[in-house]
């Protein structure tokens, strides 16, 4: 089958410098995509557009939206979704899965260590100032033993395929990684729109996330609790990830609470129900550390629960993820991941790390300032793709501005070579055709005492703007259903 017969891809242009996930170097469709390519080829672009619109309105009607705060009013938007799925074959998936688990485990051991004996610092593997100068290191966590020894119960690992065909991790997200609900919604939408294509592939299900998450949360119950009462805490319905919070609560069959629904009495946590107070044992919290308890952290927080941290410290309630995990997804800690993995697990990293320059080190800072046009500059403690500058996209004056910022607070920034994320054919509204767009993959790893689980799918995020490398939804990114094929 050639491109000419396949009208849906007939105008697809390939840039030879980019790593295309469905075409090989010689312009042939790769094996796993062959059937899909043919199946989609049976449709005209108009069919595709109409299916795409149906999928969009289905998202909209279901209220699977996020809020965009504009100048005047709040707008409801759907997370853009592309109906052409990404396929990951079992060999690649094996690497991603093992790599994600390896990183989660290593980060967990790292967190335990830096909140206890700090051996990795004493052995001079990781410099002490990564902790002393991190706003996310919580002194209060020192000496606390979280149930099961687990800190990062839920991790989101952002993986990319570089043009060398290898997988690299761009970021570990172990505070409140979001996006898992979209994985499931994307699958549901694709099944409704193009159910036929599923007959031709043996794809792993993604609907088992909630049951695995619940099993994990129940496994880290406080001591002395028989059947734990689990809840999800949300900042409220105006939060951009509220849909996900309610989705997770609903599918786990647990209560979705806000801070004002909980109270602490004698260091135990209760929720206010129609039948009076009911004890809460495990809280999957989707509120940042600083907001969980106004008596202990940010006193202006109205999202949290006064006294919650004392209840946690006394071991009467479990928080997932544990407070203070943010220190380990600091992008400056990221640089040390290969060493951290080696140190705690005595293993070689399965997923590659992108070389990172620390602006806090004078010699590296010098290099960064001199080579800014070929680097990505990232703030160490921002999430959601905020504050990222890509060197070769900057104007002269922008470069000077970035330089000045970096010089002013070098500890705040790291720099990495510009990675060439792989591209995937994505339907683009403006040109009414498929075009190459950069993609990444966020995997979701659940880590328990004797449990590890990676959702077989993950969220493929697409940078919808041509040539753009930032895939975050807050930066105009979309997503695709991601199929992990069975062996």
């Amino acid at each position, binding site marked *: 089958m050639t491109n000419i017969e396949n009208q849906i891809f007939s105008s697809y242009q390939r840039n030879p410098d980019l790593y295309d996930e469905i075409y090989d170097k010689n312009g042939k469709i790769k094996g796993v995509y062959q059937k899909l390519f043919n199946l989609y080829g049976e449709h005209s672009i108009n069919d595709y557009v109409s299916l795409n619109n149906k999928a969009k309105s289905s998202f*909209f*009607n*279901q*209220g699977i939206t996020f809020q965009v705060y504009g100048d005047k009013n709040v707008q409801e938007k759907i997370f853009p979704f592309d109906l052409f799925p990404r396929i990951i074959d079992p060999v690649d998936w094996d690497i991603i899965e093992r790599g994600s688990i390896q990183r989660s485990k290593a980060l967990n051991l790292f967190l335990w260590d830096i909140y206890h004996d700090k051996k990795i610092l004493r052995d001079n593997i990781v410099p002490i100032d990564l902790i002393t100068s991190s706003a996310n290191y919580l002194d209060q966590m020192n000496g606390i033993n979280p149930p099961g020894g687990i800190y990062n119960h839920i991790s989101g690992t952002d993986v990319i395929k570089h043009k060398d065909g290898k997988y690299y991790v761009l970021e570990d997200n172990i505070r409140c990684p979001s996006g898992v609900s979209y994985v499931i919604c994307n699958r549901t939408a694709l099944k409704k729109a193009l159910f036929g294509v599923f007959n031709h592939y043996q794809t792993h299900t993604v609907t088992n996330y909630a049951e695995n998450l619940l099993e994990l949360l129940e496994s880290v119950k406080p001591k002395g609790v028989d059947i734990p009462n689990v809840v*999800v805490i949300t900042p*409220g*319905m105006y939060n951009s990830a*509220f*849909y996900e919070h*309610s*989705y997770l*609560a*609903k599918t786990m069959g647990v*209560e*979705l*609470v*806000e801070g*004002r*629904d909980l109270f602490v009495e004698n260091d135990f946590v209760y*929720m*206010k*129900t*129609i039948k009076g107070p009911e004890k809460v044992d495990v809280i999957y919290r989707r509120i940042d550390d600083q907001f969980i308890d106004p008596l202990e952290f940010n006193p202006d927080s109205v999202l949290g629960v006064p006294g919650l941290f004392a209840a946690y410290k006394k071991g009467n309630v479990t928080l997932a993820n544990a407070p203070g995990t943010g220190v380990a997804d600091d992008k400056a800690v990221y640089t040390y991941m290969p060493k951290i993995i080696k140190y705690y697990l005595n293993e070689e990293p399965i997923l590659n790390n992108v070389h990172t320059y620390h602006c806090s080190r004078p010699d590296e800072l010098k290099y960064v300032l001199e080579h800014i046009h070929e680097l990505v500059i990232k703030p160490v403690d921002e999430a959601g793709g905020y504050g990222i500058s890509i060197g070769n996209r900057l104007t002269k004056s922008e470069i000077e501005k970035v330089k000045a910022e970096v010089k002013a607070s070098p500890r705040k920034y790291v720099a990495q070579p510009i990675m060439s994320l792989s591209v995937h054919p994505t339907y683009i509204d403006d040109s009414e055709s498929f075009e190459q767009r950069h993609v990444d993959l966020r995997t979701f790893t659940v880590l328990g005492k004797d449990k590890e689980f990676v959702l077989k799918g993950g969220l493929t995020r697409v940078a919808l703007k041509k040539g753009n490398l930032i895939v975050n939804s807050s930066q105009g990114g979309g997503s695709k259903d991601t199929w992990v094929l069975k062996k």
Partner: protein
Amino acid sequence: MLARVANNLFWMGRYIERSEHVARYLNVNYFSSLDAPNIKSQDRQFVLRSMLFMVGDPEKDDKKFLKEEDVLYKIGLDPNYSSSIINNIKFARENANSARDLISTELYEAINKFYHFVINYPKEVFVKNGLHEFTTHVAEMTDILRGKIRGTLLHDATYAIISMGINIERATQITRMINAKFNDAMLSQGGENERFRKSFEWTTLLKCAESYDMMRRFYKKTPTSITTLEFLILNPNCPRSVMNSLNQVNQHVKILNPEKRYNKDSTAFLIGRVRSEYEFKYIEEIDEDIKSFIEDILKSLVDISNKVDEEFFNY
């Protein structure tokens, strides 16, 4: 169930029900006035005033000329008027949002679609020629929502709370309609005379409550004040009657509070007490003083709602 979420569900039920009654009141009054048998009832000013009276915002200035477009817009789509239909639906959805994990996807999707329909309905169309389409659609959507509530939710505490909200609101709205039509009949006939008893307004009232056909079937006579009130207040089989609503509330509160113990402070006790008062009421007693009856029943309904709030939502 969380007390806050229960509160949300209760009010979701109330707002859904309220939007339907307001919509139908607008629709029926507007269209039946077009060919009403007496001049007063045909008068557009009279109808617009009746609408404002019903939503609890009567125009006090007798001389003031009301612009039809303004009144319709205010009650229908004005985002700055808290009792407008658009706001009722907005509030219903907001309440559903915070209880989203407890209700079914199907119900949520229906509310959401409803919301988007209303929020996107063009103002110009509504005030010019969209009244019928809009209000009919609102009424139909609320039927769908009640269907989803009944058909897709577990019939447990969640369902009981929503149903209590719906039924308390229904009894309230029916009473408000009776009040508005009582007022209209008084104004159009100049007092509680024979003409008052046979006023055309009673037919309109029954239609507002979607009960005209069944009422005719039941009495086989032209509606009068006494038969209409009897049907809409006391008939337990009329699905819109105050009695029927109270029976429903009574049934649902038992799911929340199954205890049989004598507890005069409980919501269940209060509801039971109000319910039995109307179960054994003579319509003649009501007819003697309709005005006081309306005030009493509205007060009882507010008391019940406050009691529900105090017992189940307060924390």
